[in-house]
């Protein structure tokens, strides 16, 4: 009898599970492909029809910002590094900060719809635009927009069909960092992490994201001219295979990969990593913790970033979002961020506000020739970005599969 009872309840339970599961799935299905009209952009990109904000309203009281580490500092990491507290007082917008380690993470987090503002690099911006996660921005609502370098405005990574989708923030290059006491002679080339990586076997570090494949491609661009790589983000099958082989060979010498900047600082500090790719801010923080490190731009050039502040399409705090962006690109704050993170500011007037008067010269803020050597992170697509039409290039999905393969080789 008892056995029977148990069995019946089992049966009805299965029924309930099925119904609930069906409901859950139906719920997911109904949210699919909401955006009605969409327009085509160059390269066949479909952009959801979204409208920019007309005018600012009353501040909503808070704003949730998704940022690269070092971009939005409220003093919690270092009491001396704070350009948010004053803004919170004057604007009435409490700033909630969430940092991310890779562009992929940023895209994923932005997709939750919980964030109002994001600092997106070029390999995230178009994905966010195409998916309808961010909306166009009304640049006339950003009082500091006229002071932003023209070289950064309305670029392929921050605008579509002549519509601005964000406010340029700043740019820079990924650098090579090494322990000055353990790596001798001092390197001058990316070969320190590729062909010569064996010298630091088990102590090499690399950035843990498929976009790092571009770093290998950039090195091949300089060292293997017969591969004819023109743009590290436009790789056909052969070129990608060469980059993958290089990274697999590198892996034998890698101790660990990083995407969490705090982990990289610690690894360099205790010597488990001695050479590898980095950002200026990481080098600065590591030096601050007395690690004997140096970071520089290798002779082959580098991959880099040109970042854009974007507004979430589902944002409930748009007035605060615009106010925060305007604050972050204002000359003084933009200068503080540029110096703290170690990049070229986006605001022309920021160059007069830096503590180190040479900052803009050091980081080549107005040096377009320099930045022609820096290949900004861009999402690879099947249409070759270097203009080739006789061959199909590998897209980011292929890159991420390749990256998984490298990490598991």
């Amino acid at each position: 009898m008892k056995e029977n009872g148990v069995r019946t309840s089992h049966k009805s339970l299965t029924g309930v599970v099925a119904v609930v599961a069906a409901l859950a799935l139906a719920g997911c299905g109904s949210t699919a492909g909401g955006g009605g009209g969409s327009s085509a952009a160059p390269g066949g990109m479909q952009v959801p029809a979204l409208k920019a904000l007309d005018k600012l309203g009353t501040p909503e009281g808070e704003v949730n910002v998704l940022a690269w580490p070092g971009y939005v500092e409220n003093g919690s990491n270092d009491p001396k590094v704070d350009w948010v507290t004053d803004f919170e007082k004057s604007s009435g917008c409490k700033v909630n900060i969430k940092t991310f380690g890779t562009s992929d993470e940023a895209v994923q987090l932005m997709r939750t719809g919980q964030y109002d503002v994001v600092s997106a690099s070029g390999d995230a911006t178009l994905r966010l635009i195409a998916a309808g996660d961010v909306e166009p921005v009304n640049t006339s609502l950003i009082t500091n927009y006229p002071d932003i370098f023209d070289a950064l405005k309305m670029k392929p990574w921050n605008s579509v069909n002549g519509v601005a989708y964000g406010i340029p923030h700043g740019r820079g290059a990924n650098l090579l960092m090494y322990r000055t006491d353990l790596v001798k002679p001092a390197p001058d080339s990316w070969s320190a992490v590729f062909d010569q990586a064996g010298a630091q076997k088990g102590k090499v570090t690399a950035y843990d994201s498929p976009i790092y494949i571009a770093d290998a491609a950039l090195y091949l661009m300089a060292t293997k001219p017969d591969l004819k790589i023109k743009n590290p983000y436009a790789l056909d099958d052969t070129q990608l295979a060469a980059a993958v082989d290089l990274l697999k060979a590198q892996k034998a010498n890698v101790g660990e990969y990083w995407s969490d900047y705090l982990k990289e600082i610690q690894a360099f500090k205790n010597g488990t990593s001695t050479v590898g790719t980095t950002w200026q801010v990481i080098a600065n923080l590591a030096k601050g913790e007395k690690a004997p490190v140096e970071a520089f731009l290798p002779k082959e050039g580098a991959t880099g970033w040109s970042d854009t502040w974007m507004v979430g399409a589902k944002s409930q705090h748009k007035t605060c979002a615009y106010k925060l962006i305007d604050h972050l690109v204002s000359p003084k704050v933009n200068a503080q961020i540029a110096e703290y993170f170690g990049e070229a500011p986006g605001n022309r007037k920021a160059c007069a506000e830096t503590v180190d008067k040479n900052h803009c010269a050091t980081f080549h803020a107005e040096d377009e020739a320099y930045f022609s050597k820096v290949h900004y992170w861009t999402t690879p697509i099947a249409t070759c970005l270097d203009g080739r039409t006789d061959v199909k290039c590998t897209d980011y999905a292929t890159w991420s599969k390749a990256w998984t393969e490298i990490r598991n080789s």
Partner: protein
Amino acid sequence: MRSRRALVALLTPPMLWLVVAYLGALAVIFATAFWTTDPFTNLVVRTFTLENFRELLTPTYLGIIGRTLLIAVLVTVLCILIAVPFAFFMARVAPRRLRALLLAAILVPLWASYLVKAYAWRTMLQPGGVLDSAFGATPGYGFAAVVLTLTYLWLPYMILPVYAAFERLPESHLEASADLGGRPGATFRRVVVPSLLPAIAAGSVFTFSLSLGDYIAVQIVGGKLQVLGTTVLQNITLDLPLAAALGTVSVLIMVVYLLAVRRTGALENL
């Protein structure tokens, strides 16, 4: 009638929780595994495909699954090897006072944050760290470090059920075995082990499943090691359906494992 209504009221909230939050989530994961993504935006596209499961059968992913299983098995075996003598000492040898102290020593680390313990191991394993200066060598970050750290993290979950089983084991059984001429070895093999087995199986459910799903300790002390958890994490941003398919694998492994454990009768022991 009234008691029936009361029963429904009592059971509805936990059942809803179980079905919606637990089974619903599993069902969604399973369904997602049959979808694909847009190559540019990485958004999930709802067209049916078996591609994700086919991909799991490539050497890359089979390697990850095999490695993860190996870690889970090693951690479980190490936990058993440490827990059995330890629990025996606690339950049978140690005086009452010391027993309470040892029990506390096992339980206290459970109160500390998982992250703190994992980072402590990161510091201990680094060159010039505690292990290096004490033993003159450190395994460094990687496979061995992960097994070591996970064994440390999950050991209490093995000791506690085994300790309870030793406590429950009647002294008279051991005496009977000795009276009948059983040497200590035979007694251990034929009396102690069979009565411990369900407890070990119960403990192994924790050590095995926790090791199978772990990805945080692996990131902290694993160096460049890739396991199921880290691969899911890596793909969750770029290829959610593939991540879901990988998630399905660990669910399947656990179901098989639980069915096997159920045969030992250990689940009544939890």
